[in-house]
């Protein structure tokens, strides 16, 4: 993976990124670069600001200090919307809607990746038979999988995944790694936060260390 990145285009660049909450520094200053085809693992203890970093990058939080560049130009709130996909602690699934209905709304808002088909993708992610089940009846792991399905269906270059491995069994963790591999092979990039050790199928991911 490292050899490929030397020539791959630079997607995201952060210079001296800092964030304060009520004047208390949450993280930073932080410098990192993310090229196409790279996965960066955001590491740090609880409370070190991993989630905050992802929310800043997604544009949900106001950036206090530092500079963010996306594809070489200065970052603005809407400059890469549609290019990113954010998966947070809250999965963004409506409990009263079925998996299929939830995904249909997501496609309506974000657009559909070429060749993405809800039924096929749900089967791929291990949720066949649960397409029309209201999300409230799914287990925590199944809900997570349903949210991950968005990664396969929606077009995006940068994935911001907050704790994607939480609540997943071993096959689920392998599934996430497989999704990440497919994504980077296509020229996408991802920022992933995680507590535990993650075994990637190939290569060593880039690491962004948060100072707790």
């Amino acid at each position, binding site marked *: 993976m490292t050899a490929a990145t030397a020539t791959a285009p630079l997607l995201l660049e952060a210079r001296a990124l800092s964030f304060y909450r009520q004047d208390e520094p949450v993280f930073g200053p932080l410098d990192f670069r993310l090229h196409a085809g790279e996965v960066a693992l955001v590491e740090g203890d609880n409370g070190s600001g991993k989630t905050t970093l992802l929310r800043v990058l997604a544009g949900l939080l106001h950036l206090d200090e530092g500079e963010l560049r996306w594809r070489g130009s200065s970052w603005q709130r809407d400059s890469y919307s549609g290019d990113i996909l954010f998966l947070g602690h809250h999965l*963004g699934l409506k409990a009263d*809607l079925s998996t299929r209905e939830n995904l249909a709304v997501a496609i*309506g808002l974000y657009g559909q990746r*070429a060749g993405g088909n809800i039924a096929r993708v749900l089967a791929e992610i291990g949720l066949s038979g649960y397409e029309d089940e209201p999300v409230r009846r799914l287990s925590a792991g199944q809900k997570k999988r349903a949210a991950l399905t968005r990664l396969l269906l929606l077009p995006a270059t940068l994935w911001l995944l907050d704790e994607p491995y939480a609540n997943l069994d071993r096959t689920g963790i392998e599934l996430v790694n497989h999704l990440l591999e497919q994504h980077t092979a296509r020229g996408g990039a991802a920022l992933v936060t995680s507590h535990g050790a993650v075994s990637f199928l190939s290569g060593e991911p880039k690491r962004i260390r948060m100072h707790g």
Partner: protein
Amino acid sequence: MSSAPLSIACAALLRRDLTLAWRRRGDIAMPVLYALIVTTLFPFALGPEDALLQRIAGGVVLVTVLLAMLLALDAMFRSDIEDGSLEQLVLAPQPLALMLGMKILAHWLATALPLILAAPLLAGMLHLPAPVMPVLLLALLLATPLLSLLGAVLVALTAGTRRSGMLLALMLLPLCVPVVIFAAGAVAAAQQGLPWLAPIAWLGAALALALVLAPLACAAALRIALDA
């Protein structure tokens, strides 16, 4: 690999919110039931005298509908915030103001429309003269979307707080004073046989302005509220 067209996004969101409202039909009935209860209490408190009830009918129905809407207002974004749908909506490559406009429309259809349909019954219970009924309905048709739009901005502002029911009422009161004055003014004028078009026109003008500005304000307010 292209983002969804605007019309499809609007339709998807509207359909989602209406489906959710339909799956929780009981919640839709609540404001109507509340309005019915409040209207029933008035004759008990004031006496069943026809002339008195007739005189207050228009105002009572308006205030009751407003209070019933206030009851449902708090829930406009709450579940979306709790399950993360709102984050997904904010991050979607669509104009947020328009998306919120769709949410407000869905909310109006699910809460205000049933109340407007129930309004003739409520007004009838208080002996509102039949010729005044169309004016009351017209006033409600203009005033309720105004309240939904103004309310949405305030609900968005309180989206980052824990409990907001009473605070919302306090914040909404100054904004709804003009709405109530003109809506009730039109009904009262019609009841006295005076021209009632002027206050209705003011309501219409305010609604046109709010239709454009409120979703934008709502989007700005929501970004402030989520910035935590």
